[in-house]
């Protein structure tokens, strides 16, 4: 059955008629062409599809779209501002922190969520914890940790 979904995605008000049973992942990708959110498992195990909903991190593949209607949703497409890379993105790029890049949109969302929520600089352990739900088979974790640690240091000074 179709129903009107309304909410905010990347700062834009969206209203769209979609199937009631649709997951947020398919809503984003198939209905809104926001293809930056990736599909890795569709079972909540890999974090490739992670998005931020009202400041919390969710795996969009196991989130029904209508469960988060009315919420504020940020996807990777909403991370860079005015074509400028977000500092997290820039840090990951400068450190060469990724290879195939497939996990990176989800990884960026997880990092942003954790960094926004924390009042202090994240420790190495906290950075690892923040991305512990994001699988990267290319194995870039240590480089991501390095990138974010560097970024925080630069910010501090």
């Amino acid at each position, binding site marked *: 059955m179709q129903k009107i979904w309304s909410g905010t995605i990347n700062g834009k008000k969206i209203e769209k008629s979609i199937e009631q049973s649709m997951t947020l992942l398919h809503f984003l990708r198939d209905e809104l062409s926001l293809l930056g959110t990736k599909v890795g498992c569709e*079972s909540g195990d890999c974090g490739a599809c992670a998005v931020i909903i009202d400041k919390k991190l969710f795996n969009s593949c196991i989130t029904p779209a209508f469960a988060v209607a009315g919420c504020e949703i940020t996807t990777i*497409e909403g991370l860079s501002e005015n074509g400028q890379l977000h500092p997290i993105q820039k840090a990951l790029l400068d450190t060469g922190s990724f290879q195939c890049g497939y996990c*990176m949109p989800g990884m960026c969302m997880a990092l942003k969520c954790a960094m926004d929520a924390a009042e202090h600089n994240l420790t190495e352990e906290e950075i690892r914890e923040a991305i512990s739900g994001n*699988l990267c088979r290319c194995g870039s974790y240590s480089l991501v940790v390095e990138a974010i640690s560097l970024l925080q240091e630069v910010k501090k000074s």
Partner: protein
Amino acid sequence: MKNLDLIGKKIWKLDGEEGIQGQTRYGTDLSMSGMLYVKAYRARIPHGKLLRLDVSKAAALDGVSCVLTAKDIPGEKKFGFPAGADQPVLVEVGGTILMKGDALALVASPSLSVAEKALSLIEAEYEQYEAIDDYERVANDSSYFLKNECSGEYSYERGDLSKGQAEADVILEGSYEVPIQEHAYMETESGLSYYDSKGILTVESGTHDAFYVRYEVARCLGIDEIKVRSIVPLVGGTYGGKQQCSTQLHIALVTQKTGLPAKMVWSRRESMLVSHKRHPAKIHMRMGATKDGAITFLESNYVMDGGPYSTCSSGVCYWMGTHSAGPYNIPNVSINGKAVYTNNTVGAAFRGFGGPQGVFPLERHMDKMARELNMDAQQLRAKNYIREKDQPACNGVLIDTRVTVGEALEKAIEKLGPLPQPSTPHAKVGRGYAVAMPLHDVSSDPVWGMGGTGAHVEIFRDGSIEVRSGTCEFGSGLDTVQKLIISNEFGVPMERIHLITSDTYWTPKVGRCVGSKGAYASGQALLMASQELKERLATIAAVHFGTYPVIAPLVFANERIYTNQQKRDYMTLAEAADFAYRQGMNLAADSWYVNPNRLNGNAFCAMAADVEVDMLSYETKVLRCGYVHDAGTIINPLAAIGQAVGGVTQSIGYALTEKWVIEKGESKTLSFHDYTIPTSVDTPHIEVEFIEEPSTDGPYGAKGLSEHPSYVGAVAIVNAVSNALDTEFDVFPLTPDKLYTYLHG
């Protein structure tokens, strides 16, 4: 050799800015209007005869565009690389199912949910046979087999084993088992096919070789290769696993049948069920040494499980053999191995290609031998290292470089610092290490059509440069490396170079990008084409400066061509290109690099690791890793470090957590929930260092790079756990349950 402007500097990944913003389009992201979703109906049993297949209800379902079975295939009904086409595209009625997940029928619909519904309406009936699943038994019991042949064999003998045994003071035997490993790339197999505006059937899909896909698609569809175009978008991980056809033939069949675009994306479960794996292997090893640690002989017999289809088992089996004696000079050697057919998962290429299976037993055995001799394990290795000009235990190879293996191991251990104290009273810590000397790191062996690599370089009239290369990019940074090389050769900034890759329409042919060969072979092809263009530019410069016919050596920098090192007199590259244009001179060059017909024994690597085992939970944590690799000249350090760290991380999973469960040909671990690959909290700080001993034949002295951490990673960790617990672990992954049973029975 490295007096270069850009080579060796840290450069952003070219596709990086797009990738980090989620703008990169992978196979899973492709779509077209009017597109059909394709789903495969798969065999539910691992072995048997397909008696009946009823697709009528599926075909009659509203919204289903077509249902295809084996009889709808116009061309060849089997595919497979490189040993031969032995895998059915779709199993026909009356045909034999050899693997759970073999495809039986395809359904296509504009709606994914209709396609999924249609699958549930297909009915199949089987006559089930016993699953041939015990690969060791297949190797030893002539009455138990799936196919009456092997999928791979290796044999190497030298010296005299009995002499080696007589000289030995200690003889040590051991049996080892190396497990299956699943590639688990984050992007599952996917592809889109369509007819382009000229009626060419086009397939876009993740693979290692666009040209191979073109060949298989044309054969399967029964059309000429000129009617097929194959494009490879950025691949979301492969590590060797996407070499064979996966979705390509199925979507192409649907497009041919319906004329419509067709897309297929494998579910994670499907990917884990059907995709190829690292071969498991069992090894029996005997080694003899004198009291003071000189190894007198090595005997190794092994068998690997290749599953039901041949793919590249022959190569993996061969290369496992070439790794079996490692970087040691052993006078008397006998190595014999085979890969056999079973109804288990298909064994095929996975980063390291048989290397990890060869290195594991040897480097475990070296540690055990050291204990037996009451000798330091590093010292025992050092005593036996191969030297320059030595003949390693493999035919056709010569060590033609400074041997850096000892240095690599010393540095790797140094990186760890002192062994830390256990963090709790019920924890134990230990250190382990391993070394390797891969003999095929650049796939310079011209087998399987991999020997030749083409490149096309053209300087446009304004001095910008177009490069065409058939190589594929799956995250190793190969695109960046190729642009770097051209930028360096002509002194042109990266932004003024356009690189077109892996599109059979536009790019020259290459052999598949495997075995760490990408940068090596394509780099050479690009250098050859550049050299040719530079010679033509030198003629132009000689005319310009009035020295013709004397042609002076030139310097290419800042988009200019200088006549001398002092960089005084110059013409711009654009001026030269414009001159060429007006004179009707060609500034496009095509090259064809042929791999040297030999193996390379020159890229050494070592890893050291500290681990802590919690004796209450039996969980093992890797505390720190040091990885040191002689990869020759490093062209792009950022990408190189990424490859090293990535390979080590995959090895941590292989050693500790990645337990593939398969019983009677039925895989049980078909999700990330059940098959646990390392996460950020399982991965320690990994320190990497490169020793840059230039190779004689790689571009700028580069050597192979990507596969090497896989050779040494897992065994270094298992050695560390063995040391921590004072127990010899000859199998892995060392999951808590395995550790517990190993220790307490």
